[in-house]
């Protein structure tokens, strides 16, 4: 049985603007939505900044600051993108707005475009803040790796963050608020396998088997390669970009399927009573 039709892929710019307006209001009216743009990324930057200072002072390993801080700054982009999708979807569950929202003519595409737009702005703010902070505290400028590299790395990480966020949103629609913790915790599960702070070939074989399937791994491998050689490893990066694009389409399809299942089981109306 078909669970979507062509209408589900349509979008109205006015509806998207309405949703962007809602998410903007949610951000400036909610202190934690402002706070979380910088809180965890700053904690991470401080942690890895001091760790790299210590390692740099006790070993001959060159470029340690760039490896660790570059990883911390870029990882914050993935984490921001992924959690924003989950939390903006959860906001509607928490406010019992799911009923009104999905009874309206809004489509999933409009919803995700709006979350993507507001998420992009929040990511840029977070990235700029961390870039200035890293430069101010540790004299590390991530822009030194070049505009092209930054554009490639950030686009893969943002898209991959949205993929994970959309999958979590789909699971929330299917299984309800009892799994909402995934919105914040999945990033921590993916991080060790993404080789953010260490090279892929230093990992045990079974970890490498998992890591190589994650687009994020190729970004961090690419980052280290760019720092070491000043060049971009185009082939793995393009492959990871292609893989992320495919995953993105699959995640949207899975979300539509989960939403269809939720409607079949009457779950959308039960969330209001929860």
């Amino acid at each position, binding site marked *: 049985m078909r669970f979507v039709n062509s209408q589900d892929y349509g979008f109205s710019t*006015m509806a998207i603007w309405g949703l962007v*307006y809602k998410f903007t209001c949610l951000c400036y009216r909610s202190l934690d939505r402002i706070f979380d743009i910088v809180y965890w990324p700053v904690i991470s930057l401080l942690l890895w900044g001091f760790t790299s200072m210590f390692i740099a002072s006790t070993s001959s390993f060159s470029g340690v600051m760039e490896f660790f801080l570059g990883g911390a700054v870029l990882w914050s982009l993935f984490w921001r993108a992924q959690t924003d999708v989950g939390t903006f979807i959860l906001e509607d569950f928490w406010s019992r707005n799911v009923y009104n929202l999905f009874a*309206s003519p*809004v489509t999933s595409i409009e919803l995700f475009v709006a979350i993507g737009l507001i998420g992009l702005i929040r990511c840029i703010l977070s990235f700029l803040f961390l870039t200035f902070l890293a430069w101010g505290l540790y004299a590390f400028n991530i822009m030194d790796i070049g505009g092209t590299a930054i554009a490639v790395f950030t686009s893969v990480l943002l898209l991959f963050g949205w993929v994970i966020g959309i999958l979590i949103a789909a699971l929330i629609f299917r299984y309800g608020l009892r799994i909402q913790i995934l919105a914040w915790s999945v990033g921590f599960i993916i991080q060790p396998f993404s080789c953010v702070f260490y090279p892929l070939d230093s990992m045990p074989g079974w970890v490498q088997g998992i890591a190589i399937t994650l687009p994020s791994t190729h970004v961090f491998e690419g980052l280290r390669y760019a720092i070491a050689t000043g060049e971009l490893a185009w082939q793995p990066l393009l492959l990871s970009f292609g893989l992320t694009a495919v995953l993105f389409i699959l995640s949207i399809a899975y979300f539509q399927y989960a939403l269809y299942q939720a409607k079949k089981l009457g779950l959308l109306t039960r969330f209001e009573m929860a």
Partner: protein
Amino acid sequence: MALLEIRDLRKRYGTVEALQGLSLDVERGEFFGLLGPNGAGKSTTINILLGLIIADGGSIRIFDHDFTANHVAIRRRMNVAAAFTSMNGVLTVWENLMVYGRIYGVKQLPRKIDELLERFEITDLAKRRLQHLSSGQHTRVTLCKGFLNDPELLLLDECTLGLDPDIAEKTRRALQAVQQERKTTILFTSHNMNEVEELCGRIAFLSQGEILRVDTAAHIKRLIPHQVVEVTFQAGSDLTPIRQLNGISRIERNGDHALRFVLDDPTHQLDPLLRHLTQSGNPIVDIHVSRPTLEDVFIKVARGEL
């Protein structure tokens, strides 16, 4: 051509048949009531019409279009106000209405919001956060949202729940006024029978996922044919001969000096009863005739007696 046509709508949750082939037509401009006890299938029907639940079988045509194939376009022309739902609590009333106005593609939105806030007498709440409103104020905001896009079809689910009698009365007046001005078709559910009787031209009575009857309130009340006549006599009256009256379905003693007469066929039984009472020679102190209410029908349906 009916504005809303439901044919053989079916929905099952596990072993529970929520809707068992429900069919219904609602005409353009009607204020139509859906009544029935909990679990009768009212909310399931409304939620299917909103696209929040997918039916197992049957078809829905709204505005002469198939709902499944055109649900996004159709939902732009309809709206809902349900008391148990909310919008974003941290946003103000104005911001929430701006969000939904844009989602529904409303033109001249600020003017429209002002007009509705004034209509439902909550202009002073525009800048208040939704989470800080009382349930009555919240309900009126929900109604404003419901009318934002001048819907051709509006679904009102328990929309006056939690309102005090004064505000509920004002809300009913506002609903009637807006509905008559705009010829909005309204599908209305409530457990307040007086409200349903006052507002709705026709009512569908649902029970166990099926429509028991679609008719006006006056006709539905005739599902209970009997009337009850309660007569209080002066103290010391001899009620024995009166209790022996033939042709009355049931005569019960109601205190020392009063009798209850249950008439199954009031048209033919009331006149002979009153003649008999006056001829009995016992002075009557009080007389009260109770006709069945919509609530009586509701209770009998809920208890499976109808």
